[in-house]
């Protein structure tokens, strides 16, 4: 298991390299002129050329890419073309906000969606199931920008319970944006949980558990849901990764200075250092989260754990056989 983890961790390096190359290439291929963007349309061409030279924007592609890599390896991700601040500082300031938003949104989404999904599956073909399913479909069909606006109109404008945006008002600042994400994601968790649980509820081992005389609670949570958890964990992992850069609409609506807005602005402005660093951060988080998901698989399902171990055993056996062959030769 440990070897497997080390191997997965090492795999992150080439993955990030490939991602960095692709992003850098795409940024390079799209027409851009940071000097012009920074100085505005009124600036002279000489000034624009001078600034592009200062920013190192006129160097050939591979020189720029390898300079970026070399600096990144030493922990220097460069400075934003626009803010002139080290991009790592900007990410350090923004990442916690996106993490907070993601964590609490998913906490509520899982806390509401999963129990609803279980309830719906257990009470399949009843009024409760229909109500939960309809609610889930309705909520997941709501566009996030519309939902955000409605939350603002009702809870901020009419009732004036919560501020309209920003993060200056303590926990109250987070209620509406968290709700905005949680509502749509809860619906998604509900549907995935229901489907996964319905798949497992009909399995032989669940029937066996029932015939053994286990209580319904033990049957559902101890046997059926245990296997359905794999789906929920996968969806959760994917959503964490997605939300790292996918909260743009909510961040924009509720003025949360997070990573999503930063990526969007950086790409729009062709701010290469900021775009590269923020996308790599998101990619890194995504890869780590997917690794954690794999670990959780092993914890939840002993069969998977044994697969990891057997893979290592097989590899070890192969190596020892090769060594034996070599020594015999």
């Amino acid at each position, binding site marked *: 298991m440990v070897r497997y983890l080390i191997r997965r961790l090492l795999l992150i390096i080439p993955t990030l390299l490939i991602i960095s190359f692709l992003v850098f290439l795409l940024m390079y291929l799209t*027409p851009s002129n940071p000097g*012009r963007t920074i100085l505005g349309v009124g600036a002279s061409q*000489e000034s624009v050329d001078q600034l592009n030279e200062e920013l190192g924007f006129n160097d050939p592609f591979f020189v720029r890419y390898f300079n970026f890599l070399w600096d990144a390896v030493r922990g220097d991700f460069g400075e934003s073309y626009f803010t002139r601040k080290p991009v790592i500082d900007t990410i350090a300031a923004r990442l916690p906000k996106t993490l907070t938003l993601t964590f609490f949104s998913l906490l509520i989404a899982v806390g509401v969606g999963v129990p609803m999904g279980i309830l719906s599956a257990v009470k399949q073909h009843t009024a409760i199931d229909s109500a939960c399913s309809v609610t889930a479909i309705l909520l997941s069909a709501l566009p996030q920008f519309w939902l955000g606006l409605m939350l603002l109109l009702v809870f901020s404008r009419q009732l004036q*319970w919560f501020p309209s945006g920003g993060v200056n008002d303590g926990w109250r600042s987070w*209620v509406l944006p968290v709700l905005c994400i949680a509502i749509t994601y809860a619906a998604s968790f509900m549907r995935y949980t229901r489907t996964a649980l319905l798949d497992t509820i009909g399995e032989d081992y669940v029937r066996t558990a029932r015939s053994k005389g286990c209580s319904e609670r033990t049957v559902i949570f101890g046997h059926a849901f245990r296997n359905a958890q794999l789906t929920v964990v996968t969806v959760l992992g994917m959503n964490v990764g997605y939300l790292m850069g996918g909260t743009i609409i909510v961040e*924009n609506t509720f003025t949360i200075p997070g990573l999503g807005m930063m990526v969007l602005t950086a790409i729009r402005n062709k701010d290469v250092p900021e775009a590269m660093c923020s996308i790599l951060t998101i990619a890194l988080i995504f890869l780590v989260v997917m690794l954690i998901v794999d670990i959780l698989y092993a914890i939840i399902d002993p069969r998977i754990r044994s697969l990891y171990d057997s893979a290592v055993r097989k590899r070890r056996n192969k190596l020892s056989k090769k060594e034996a062959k070599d020594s015999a030769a």
Partner: protein
Amino acid sequence: MKKKLIALLLAVVLVCTLAACDGTSGREITGEEIVIHLNNTVQVLDPLSTSAVADLFVIYQIFDSLLEPTDEDYYNLRGSLAETWSVTPDGLTYTFNLRQGVLFHNGDEMTSEDVKFSIDRCATSALGAAAYSAYAGTEIVDKYTVKIYLKYADASFPSVLASYNSSIVNKKIMETYKVGDREAICGTGAYKLSSWEEGGDIVLEATESYHFGVPSIKRVIFRQIVDLNAATIAFENGEIDMFNFPQVADLAELRVNEKWTAVDITKPMVNYIAMQNQHGPTADINVRKAIAHALDRTMLSAVYGGYYDTDVTLISDPTMEGWTTDVEKYAFNVELAKQYMATAGYNTTDKRLALTIVVPVADTMEALCTVLQSNLREIGIDLTVNSMEGAAWHEKVVSREYELAFMQMSYLPWLSTLMNFMMYRSDGYYNVSDLPSNTLTVALPDGTAATIDDILNWAFGTYDYNTRNWFYQEVNKIVNQQCAYVPMTYDKQTSLYDARLENVHFDVSNLISKVYRIDWVLGD
């Protein structure tokens, strides 16, 4: 299970009730704080590294220049950090006597060393260099006196010194820290930076020894709300006191509320179409005039909800030198446009003209191009729209590889001369007057005939405002006569603020000049 669910629901209701008790509606106005909305994220607070409006809102409060405009007039200047100033008759040497005892926000005294450093920095920077083309150097006479030398007379130089680019920065600080460092944001302005949360609030505190008096508002909060729906709600809730540039759709409702004062400003920016006048079909002045007369500006404005000023005849505005109303207006007249097309050899049936316009990708372009296509179709022009990414569009414009091009020109009044050069000189970036020289002669008072380049050169060194203005007016008249472009609309903007705020001034660039002048007038 049911009991637990009910308990959970009750807890949620309780939390919401508690939140309701502590609502945000009751933000107390003490008269010592103002919250100003910014519709974009502030990126950098260095006067020489930005031209973004959101950045400038804040920079204006933190930094001062040697000179400053008097109440929205960039050609009538007063000393700010310079107490007095003079210029030699040849216009080549300026002497500035600095205010004594002016302190930077870190406590250092502002001296000639800082002025020389700041001006040199401007002259060599990418953003400032163009305006400083005449600059030769600065000499420190003593601790509070500097002489600035020019290579040749430049009448707009004092206005350049009054611009935000020419803000005086702390030499010691700038040599120790770099742009982007929090410590480098150190000016002599009425407010100093107190805190700046990345993407969040920027808080400024009043300095106690500002040379124009201590501000009555002690704390300025710049709140960055990019989403205008959210900003509208924040304004209605009283979370912000000054709302800059609301959506057109919300304006009608906001205007009627007596709690707020609305100020409409025509932005110093004109949208226009540049026409290729060196080759191709638009080299024929009749085609250009036909296009100018075919454009229905009222329809154009209507597709934007009427929020455009269509009374536009030049690619200039009244704040700019050279502004004149004594030019041909090229009013909307389809029949006249058809006549010009007929003179050029085209008609609306079998001899139609095909043209292409290059436009940058933008939300507003689709509606604009639809109107243009519709207008031009009527006079026998089939217009193809080539919509391209901003940088690619710039390349086309700079290399003049277009038949028609959508253009925007923002005016910075203190750069009037530079702007006129860019628009009209044969080597100017935006040159729209690249016409055959034999069509561009004008009889000047001394009886000479001159090309536009010559007129601009004369204007450059003319210190008398009226004469200089006359030169620029002549250029505008010639270019207008040759119909080198089609001015379309000016953008408009509205700012709303709490009606209890007094002395709110917006300068010509539509920025709040200085918050230190603003006062709250609160009843008992």
